[in-house]
């Protein structure tokens, strides 16, 4: 019998709740989460089936002050697992909880996390877009050497790719927001 397994699973940006449920279900089935790598390769090892709650946080400030951040969760009984694309992974056995426990206990802090996720994913491409791609389309298209024509095409292609990225993230966010409002 195999003691470890890997599964590929893709969760869009705003679907960390589905990811949490997935990890909890695996643990219930006797597969303990070890780590996630690449874009979504999940590594598990065999364990005693147990109801364990998995939670993801997204806190850039916490990553900057990692020791204190992890200590706070540790004090509250949450085991820190790893960071992945800005998310921090935690788990806690349901048997050690008083009722239902989550790493957030009010709407204000949950909304704050969503804001951070949105900022973390939108800001870097937005900066590249306005500071590099847009000016370059202008500059390259106003020069007449052949190399400028090629670069114009390259930056126009990047322009379209980035528009798609914005639309994609925007759509994911809108879907999530709608779900949240229900």
């Amino acid at each position, binding site marked *: 019998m195999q003691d470890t397994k890997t599964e590929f699973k893709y969760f869009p940006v705003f679907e960390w709740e589905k990811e949490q449920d997935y990890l909890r279900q695996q643990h219930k089935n006797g597969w303990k989460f070890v780590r996630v790598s690449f874009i979504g390769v999940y590594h598990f090892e065999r364990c005693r089936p147990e109801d364990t709650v998995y*939670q993801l*946080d997204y*806190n850039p*400030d*916490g990553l900057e*002050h990692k*020791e*204190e*951040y992890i*200590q*706070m*969760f540790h*004090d*509250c009984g*949450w085991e820190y697992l790893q960071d992945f694309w800005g998310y921090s992974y935690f788990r806690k056995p349901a048997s050690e909880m*008083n009722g239902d*426990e*989550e*790493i*957030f*206990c*009010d709407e*204000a*802090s949950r909304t*704050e*996390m969503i804001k951070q996720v949105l900022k973390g994913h939108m800001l870097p491409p937005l900066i590249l877009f306005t500071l590099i791609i847009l000016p370059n389309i202008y500059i390259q298209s106003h020069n007449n050497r052949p190399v400028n024509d090629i670069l114009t095409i390259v930056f126009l292609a990047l322009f379209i790719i980035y528009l798609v990225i914005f639309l994609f993230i925007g759509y994911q966010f809108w879907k999530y927001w709608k779900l949240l409002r229900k």
Partner: protein
Amino acid sequence: MDSHIKKVYVPMTETGFYILLCLREESHGYNIVRKVELLTQGEVRISPGTMYGSLSKMEKDGLIQFVREEDKRKIYCITDLGKEVLALEMKRIERLYRNMTEVR
């Protein structure tokens, strides 16, 4: 007190209120979690994500200040601005309570 602070913190969340209340004495986050649990007979349990986020936000807004670090735990205490906000909230809650007992 500027209008931004007033808008964000008056009224404030239960978590925020208890944090300010506890930070009239120097304390770290987990200590506040335990204190609040005692004060409310276990009914209010502040989660670590909420606690960490609230402390950094309040520090940024100048309601509390970092004092020192002890065993990887940041110790904070309330500032004058924090005391002002807490006093406003106490007044508001007192009024709320008075009006509530009148109709009961």
